[in-house]
């Protein structure tokens, strides 16, 4: 068996609490690597693709990787893979924390959960031995509170991933959290909640060995050294929140539910302004040398703030008060809900009110009180919150009257903070994404912010760039390494192969990893095909295809143009079943 792996996964039926170790062959591991790739394979092998994602038979996979536990910077990551209750399609959400290291030390390369516990429970995995414990004392607790209580009960050496109150109540974009980090998108927490599991507590002592320890140490030292350089300075010194002013300057900052690409109050939300009233500290994920987390004080507590939360709860809802956005972001973390889907769904509802389609007069763009109230209602599923907890696509189906035309989603997943009309390579990445509109599965915005393309006028030449970024993201999500390293890796596939060789001992090459990346992208699509995907899902909401960007009329993307790009994407992928 290859080094860096245990060579098996743990299949746990939470209905009974019985676990079985299932062997993973070298061939499967080499084809899939880990993380998203391994998760996709296990999900396909488990069947139940057609099942309701919230049914007991629908699997939920926690996939680690060969690099987890190694000295390579940013490698302490895990992927949570399932059918999404928000999209009905493939979903993989990733997080960085000690849960990845502890989970792998439990003696397996992945956890596959099926079934439904008889009552709300904690799944305890102690060095590979599995048991269920009652979760009555943490019912309704925030993610952080549940984690603290359970470590008090079980022991400080356990690492605990939990859902918040929203996951218990079936909000369809609930997260799984550990140590303040979230596997955030697509409703992984909803799936865990549907299995009546409030939290997974894990510890272990089983380490894997590295094939070439000396070479691995040298590679790790070099990578760490380079991770301190200019390529990551933005993340380290300012955090992703600095994107807000850049995007606003380019007229691509989604504002008031994508009705504009500029926000008059953007300066109020810049990291520099937020830092005036809220002290800022830096932190790192476990085993990371970049240190991208910027944590702002808020009263006697703190809140992590990323660009995606800032745009979704700020400009997208027309809210320019930094204090309110910080409160909203913290509340989403406490409830355990994805900030992008939360902000996107609320902004959609605000536009419905503005258009007279929804009789909730308090829910107005720009109202911080309305934003905070709506988040509470979503978390409790009370009042209009019950509908908004289903996401913008479902809400549009309920509201009707063509509101789907401006519901900000692709395949049901709310669009991140990149205006598609002004960033058209990204628009293609959103349209074809297996899990819906997502900036972590397609980094095509990198291309739009370069001299390789005209960001306002995508051509067929843009397609290969979109494919290239999607392939690289799939490989990074399977190795697993943080995407903030992508500019640090000067020879992406070559350096990735060197790392994998040092860990596993395989004679893997750059060319092999290029093929592996494409295979992983294809596996995600294969899941979607089996789940009922059709070509008309690879598109954008009507708003983006019928109306130029109001603040930049040159930024216009016709339906015909997008269809050409999508067709060329499928052609270059070699997918003839579209």
């Amino acid at each position, binding site marked *: 068996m290859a080094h860096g792996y245990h060579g098996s996964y743990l299949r746990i039926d939470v209905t009974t609490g019985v676990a079985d170790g299932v062997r993973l062959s070298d061939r499967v591991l080499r084809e899939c690597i880990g993380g998203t790739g391994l998760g996709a394979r296990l999900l396909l092998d488990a069947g139940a693709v057609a099942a309701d994602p919230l049914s007991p038979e629908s699997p939920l996979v926690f996939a680690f990787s060969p690099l987890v536990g190694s000295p390579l910077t940013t490698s302490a990551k895990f992927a949570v893979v399932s059918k999404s209750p928000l999209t009905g399609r493939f979903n993989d959400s990733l997080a960085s924390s000690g849960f990845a290291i502890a989970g792998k030390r439990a003696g397996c390369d992945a956890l596959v959960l099926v079934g439904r516990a008889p009552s709300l429970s904690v799944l305890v995995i102690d060095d590979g031995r599995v048991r269920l414990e009652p979760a009555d004392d943490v019912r309704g607790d925030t993610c952080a509170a549940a984690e603290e209580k359970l470590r008090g009960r079980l022991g400080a050496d356990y690492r605990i991933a939990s859902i918040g109150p929203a996951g218990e109540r079936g909000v369809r974009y609930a997260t799984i959290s550990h140590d303040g980090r979230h596997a955030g998108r697509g409703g992984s927490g909803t799936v865990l909640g549907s299995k009546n599991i409030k939290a997974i507590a894990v510890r272990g002592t089983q380490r894997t060995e590295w094939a070439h320890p000396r070479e691995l140490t040298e590679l790790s030292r070099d990578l760490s050294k380079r991770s301190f350089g200019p390529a990551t300075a*933005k993340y380290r010194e*300012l955090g*992703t929140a*600095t994107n807000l002013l850049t995007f606003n*300057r*380019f007229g691509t900052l989604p504002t008031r539910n994508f009705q504009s690409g500029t926000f008059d109050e953007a300066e109020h939300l810049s990291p520099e302004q937020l830092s005036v009233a809220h002290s800022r500290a830096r932190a790192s994920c476990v085993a990371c040398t970049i240190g991208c987390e910027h944590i702002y004080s808020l009263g006697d507590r703190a809140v992590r703030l990323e*660009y995606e939360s800032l745009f979704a709860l700020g400009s997208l809802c027309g809210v320019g008060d930094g204090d309110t956005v910080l409160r909203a972001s913290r509340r989403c973390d406490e409830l355990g809900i994805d900030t992008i889907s939360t902000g996107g769904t609320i902004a959609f509802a605000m536009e419905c009110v503005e258009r007279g389609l929804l009789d909730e007069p308090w829910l107005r763009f720009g109202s911080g009180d309305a934003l905070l109230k709506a988040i509470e209602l979503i978390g409790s599923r009370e009042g209009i919150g019950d509908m908004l907890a289903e996401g913008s696509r479902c809400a549009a189906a309920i509201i009707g009257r063509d509101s789907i035309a401006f519901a900000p989603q692709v395949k049901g997943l709310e669009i991140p903070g990149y205006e598609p009309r002004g960033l058209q390579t990204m628009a293609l990445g959103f349209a074809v994404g297996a899990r819906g509109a997502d900036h972590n599965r397609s980094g095509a915005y990198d291309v739009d912010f370069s001299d390789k393309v005209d960001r306002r006028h995508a051509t067929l030449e843009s397609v290969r760039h979109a494919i290239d970024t999607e392939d690289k993201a799939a490989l990074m999500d399977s190795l697993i390494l943080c995407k*903030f390293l992508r500019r640090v890796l000067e020879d992406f596939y070559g350096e990735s192969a060197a790392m994998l060789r040092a860990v596993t001992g395989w004679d893997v090459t750059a060319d092999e990893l290029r093929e592996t990346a494409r295979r992983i992208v294809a596996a995600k699509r294969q899941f979607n095909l089996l789940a009922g995907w059709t070509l008309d899902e690879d598109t954008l909401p009507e708003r983006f295809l019928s109306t130029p960007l109001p603040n930049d009329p040159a930024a216009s993307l016709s339906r015909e143009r997008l269809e050409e790009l999508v067709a060329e994407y499928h052609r270059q992928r070699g997918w003839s079943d579209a």
Partner: protein
Amino acid sequence: MYVEFLGIPRQRAGLSELEVEASTLGQLLDTLAVQCPALNELMSADGLHPSIVANLNGDQFVSDLKTPLAENDRLLILSADAGG
């Protein structure tokens, strides 16, 4: 013409914009190296460091040092890694 700084370049320059005289991108970078020495770490012999990009008037990204600049142009200098 004006240079606008965003992100790390703004932090290094200590200002959000600067009026300069330059007729090409190369001339402009030479001028910035003198007027804002803190920006030198973001430059290489070939122009800007790979982690930094330049954009003309919010439209076209430019890297050729011979790129002509006009009096009314605004050159934006920002981190290449726009996302996150």
